[in-house]
């Protein structure tokens, strides 16, 4: 067992972790959309 700190703090931006998680998932959806558009634009 360790004796380190176990603080839980709010994220440094966007106010809550829930919003940060949502932001990451929206970012992933955007990336997949961009990759799909990229592949479609150059694959004939």
């Amino acid at each position: 067992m360790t004796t380190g700190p176990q603080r839980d703090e709010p994220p440094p931006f966007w106010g809550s972790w829930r919003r940060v998680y949502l932001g990451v998932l929206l970012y992933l959806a955007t990336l997949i959309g961009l990759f799909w558009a990229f592949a479609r634009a150059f694959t004939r």
Partner: protein
Amino acid sequence: MRPLDWVVLFGSLAGIVTYGLYKGRGSDTVNQYLLAGKTMPWYAMALSIMATQASAITFISTTGQSYVDGMRFIQFYFGLPVAMVILSATAVPIFHRANVYTAYEYLEQRFDAKTRALVSAVFLIQRGLACGLALYATAIVLTVLLGWPDWITTVLMTGLVILYTVLGGVKAVTWTDVQQMLIIFAGLIVALLTAILLLPGEVSFLDALALAGAAGRLNAVDASFNLRTNYTLWSGLIGGTFLALSYFGTDQSQVQRYLTGRSIAQSRLSLLFNAVAKVPMQFVILFIGAIVFVFFVFEKPPLLFHPVELEKIRGRAEFAEVDARFGRAFDERRSVAMGFLKAHRAGDPVQTARRVEEYRRAQKELDAARAQGAGLAEKGNDTNYIFLTFVTRYMPAGVVGLIMAAIFAAAMSSVSAEINSLATVTVIDIYKRHVRKAASDREYLWASRLGTAFWGCYAMAFAQYGRELGSLIEAVNRVGSLFYGAMLGAFVLAFFFPRVRGTAAFLGVLAGEAAIFYAHLFTGIAFLWYNVLGCLVVVATGLAVQRAAERGRMRL
């Protein structure tokens, strides 16, 4: 490699070791040595997590995979951000509050000693094999291209890693990972820019995209659903999420990185940084492979990229005929590629469509000639040699050294984290738990140092004897997916099903492993799905056994 390349390569290696030794000072308690006293900032953990995952063989073979098969491999990483979000919300606070050195220590708090011992043993077997194999695979590729005996590559890489990891513990591992990741980033950016600059003057960047796309090398997203296809949007999102959950949530080589965080928030940020940065990074690596493909549309590639195998088949009677076929196919493809670009630039859709068909036919003929050449060789799969052949033959002095340094850095960062975590599990979950329960902190510290040295030497020895494994290599290569699903299942039971007790979880893990090995040996299911299957079987069995026990049908 020219003198400047050697200076860059050895300068980088010396810098890594010196920095590791410097940053690892003061690791004189077990807590400092294994968890850095829980003082790490998020960016150091983030880059360490990334560097641990990015092994040299990923670097080398991903670019080759894109050259041969296009960018579909990117889908493998689509589940990673989802997994990072889930782990940030669940595993990170649970592990931090449990105040543990290893993920498996938590399993004893939650279940019992036998479940902890079983999952620790699975980790030691799986990670020990994977560590040695990754080292072997890297050494064998570098050896062929640098012309050194393979033991020199292995001993150089592992020896340096053992030096700073044994002395500095997890602090040295983490801070050298940061430095190594920066070298990898620099190598990637320089490789991409140089590859684009090396394209012929008459081929613009957009022309290169058109050529790569028409040959199917930019196929980043495949939305079809097929359980037997390795890389689709769905296997990436579902199977990839389970794989990433298993790897980042249950594999001590990764868990230990974020256990060193100074707070839950810092550990979460380190995982979320990876959620944001990993997919674009893999995209860049794959994109380099696509650009290298376009480069070789205009520059004749060797029939086989594996130089030793190519030399061997030169003596075969059929070689001249196959090589001539390959030469004709290359000339034809280059000619129709120029025709396609002319039609494409003119904006004539009918001509463009016709030229695309010609270009694809020419590509198919070239692929067939290459396959025929590969058929003559003992080891025809040369994917791992494509990128490094391009680097060593065509890149300017200094850049070759930087890219080689990036590849060494990728190998060393993975090996250091792996031997550090293997030693941690050996000491905390085996030695301290079962052999010497009440020894002094000093004894555990020295055991940790000895454990690190042992696992480093083990990886080196395994890499030396790797070639003796022959055809087993391919089977062992996917070793992670054979174990991860069951390990993840144990943690899912621990986190989300408070009613389930130790014996039910233990039997669940055994059933999960049995299901994965059955799927591996007797079905054609793609390996990414093993993680889903194993996890689901562990959870279902654990719940069923617990339910039976509660109803008095089974005594646990």
